[in-house]
């Protein structure tokens, strides 16, 4: 039950079904689920009472232990505490029961596990422009738990595979008895079963979107921010695809999640229903940026090193809509430098030069600014830049070399 994952399980399911490369690309339209209809199905301190759900929870204990001990986790108490408070605000009735872990993975994702612990990827923190957007994603994940999606989808799968197996067997035995071959129908039924599983999964995602919008509106955030998140994601996907010369994936009947376009449209409609007229919403941008401040450079660094210049550039420009700063300009330069196409060195040099104007330019901005200047034959200016670099980072691994170079 994650924001946009299950790629692998979807593929394996398809492969197992032997459907092959069925290129049935069609638009997928589902009726929108209204936020007002989204009533939480669990109360505070929920414990499972049904046998199948108890089994699921039992198995998840070990998974949580594994995640809690993972060496990928970011454990900065200020940031994890902030996330815990946030899920405590938009977690509905289960707010106090949730656990939330932050993993250092530079990707846009978050997921909720059946027992009420969530994992947020660090790439999500980079992409969110303010607290309201992050609250939207966390609200969506809370929605999965509050609507009991894991056990419901498990039961749905169990029911449908049961029906299919019995049906297939009856068709085989009955068909043989009657002297007809029903194999083709069995294959159709199999395809139908699989498709209905995917549709169910998309419905749950749509439910979580609506529930999330409702939760954040109740907590006083602008519900419109959720659709902005999807808008940003679509833009990023387009940028990646354009750079790599491919088309962005659109919705198909094999999707576990609704298409991003559909989600954006539905969330916009949800927000219009939920918004209180004339109310002034605070998106708590300042508080958000202060909190992630200590790790923001790391987040940008991880992103830029993904070798996806299309997305990285789009992301940096999106973040810069709220204003450029030294960090963003430096990493803009890094995108060009690492892309290394014709003329990128000049672009990078311009970005480094722009970065060092800001007070929050990282030490490395001065270093690369210095190197660019040196290449342009401006040795005296380069020396100043390198001195600044050494002042800021006296223990830099290349400090001795830089010192020797500037004489």
């Amino acid at each position, binding site marked *: 039950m994650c924001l946009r994952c299950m790629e692998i399980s979807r593929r394996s399911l398809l492969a197992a079904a032997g459907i092959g490369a069925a290129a049935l690309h069609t638009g997928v339209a589902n009726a929108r689920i209204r936020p007002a209809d989204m009533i939480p199905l669990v109360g505070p301190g929920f414990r499972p009472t049904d*046998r*199948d759900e*108890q089994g699921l929870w039992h198995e998840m204990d070990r998974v949580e232990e594994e995640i809690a*001990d993972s060496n990928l986790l970011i454990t900065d108490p200020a940031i994890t505490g902030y996330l815990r408070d946030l899920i405590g605000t938009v977690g509905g009735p289960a707010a106090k029961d949730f656990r939330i872990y932050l993993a250092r993975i530079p990707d846009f994702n978050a997921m909720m596990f059946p027992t009420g612990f969530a994992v947020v990827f660090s790439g999500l923190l980079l992409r969110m422009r303010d607290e309201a957007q992050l609250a939207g994603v966390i609200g969506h994940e809370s929605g999965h738990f509050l609507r009991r999606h894991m056990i419901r989808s498990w039961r749905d*799968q*169990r029911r449908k*595979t049961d029906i299919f197996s019995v049906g297939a067997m009856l068709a*085989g035995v009955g068909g043989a008895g009657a002297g007809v071959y029903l194999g083709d129908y069995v294959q159709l039924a199999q395809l139908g079963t699989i498709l209905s599983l995917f549709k169910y999964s998309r419905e749950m995602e749509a439910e979580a979107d609506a529930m999330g919008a409702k939760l954040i509106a109740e907590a006083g955030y602008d519900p419109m921010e959720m659709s902005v998140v999807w808008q940003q994601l679509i833009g990023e996907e387009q940028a990646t695809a354009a750079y790599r010369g491919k088309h962005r994936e659109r919705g198909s009947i094999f999707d576990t999640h609704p298409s991003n376009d559909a989600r954006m449209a539905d969330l916009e409609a949800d927000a219009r229903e939920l918004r209180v007229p004339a109310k002034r919403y605070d998106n708590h941008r300042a508080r958000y940026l202060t909190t992630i401040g200590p790790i923001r450079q790391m987040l940008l660094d991880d992103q830029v090193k993904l070798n996806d210049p299309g997305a990285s550039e789009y992301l940096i420009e999106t973040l810069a809509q709220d204003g450029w700063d030294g960090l963003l300009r430096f990493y803009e330069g890094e995108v060009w430098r690492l892309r290394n196409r014709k003329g990128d060195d000049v672009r990078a040099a311009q970005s480094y030069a722009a970065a060092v104007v800001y007070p929050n330019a990282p030490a490395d901005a001065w270093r690369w600014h210095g190197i660019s200047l040196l290449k342009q034959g401006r040795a005296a200016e380069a020396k100043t830049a390198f001195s600044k670099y050494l002042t800021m980072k006296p223990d830099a691994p290349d400090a001795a070399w830089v010192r020797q170079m500037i004489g």
Partner: protein
Amino acid sequence: MRQRSGAFAIAATVALSACVQTRQYSDVQFTPPQGNYRLLVLRPDVTVGSLTTGGMVEPRAEWTDEARKNIVAALQAQQATRGGNVTVINHRNALAGVSEQELADVERLNFVVDEAIVQHKYLGDYLPTKRGRGLDWTLGADAVRLGQKSSYDYALFLHAEDQVASTGRVALGVLGLAGCIVGFCAPNIGGAEQLDYASLVDLKTGEVVWFNVVDAASQVPGIKFGDLRTPEGAAQMVERLLGRMKPGHDVRRQQAAR
């Protein structure tokens, strides 16, 4: 979840027929532990579930707890007969002198090493460089450090998963069998499967000295080859998995020469 996929991969190769199969590998210099040795069993990974009509596995909390208890008891009884002193750790914070993080590191390392063993010993990607060298993998210094800090001689990692065919699954199998009369014969829809594996690490050298897989699968639902929920079934499993530990190639050759 990753452990699951590894387990399925093993199952896919070993489970070709309805029977019990085991296949063990050991370090060429391996001698099964005897006498007064200290064995550390790290968080045995046990799951017992119900096999639904449609073939999905539904984990069951009470069956899993029961099975784990039985396995631990059987393991202790069995190792005692060899003179071993067994400690079973159920949580990472339960081992004196070793931090949670250190234990987690060893477990994670062991997991990927086990995956490599499965890949190159069981799934057919045989490595020419390891031909004739028995089981040639090591956890290295981390495991040696664990041994020094905890003063254990060996660490055993154990995974066991078992399924019990639901009434619906059994009925479906009966229907498939009945179909034989009219010419649609499907008696082998796949029944419950028990898959267990274990690896033994020598904490003096850090080497994985022994690895074994037991697969007790039945194509016909309702027929079972041991049930971990019962003490007898668990004892049978432990015996199949750990009871017939063979010495390594070189050791056997020396014994034969003598």
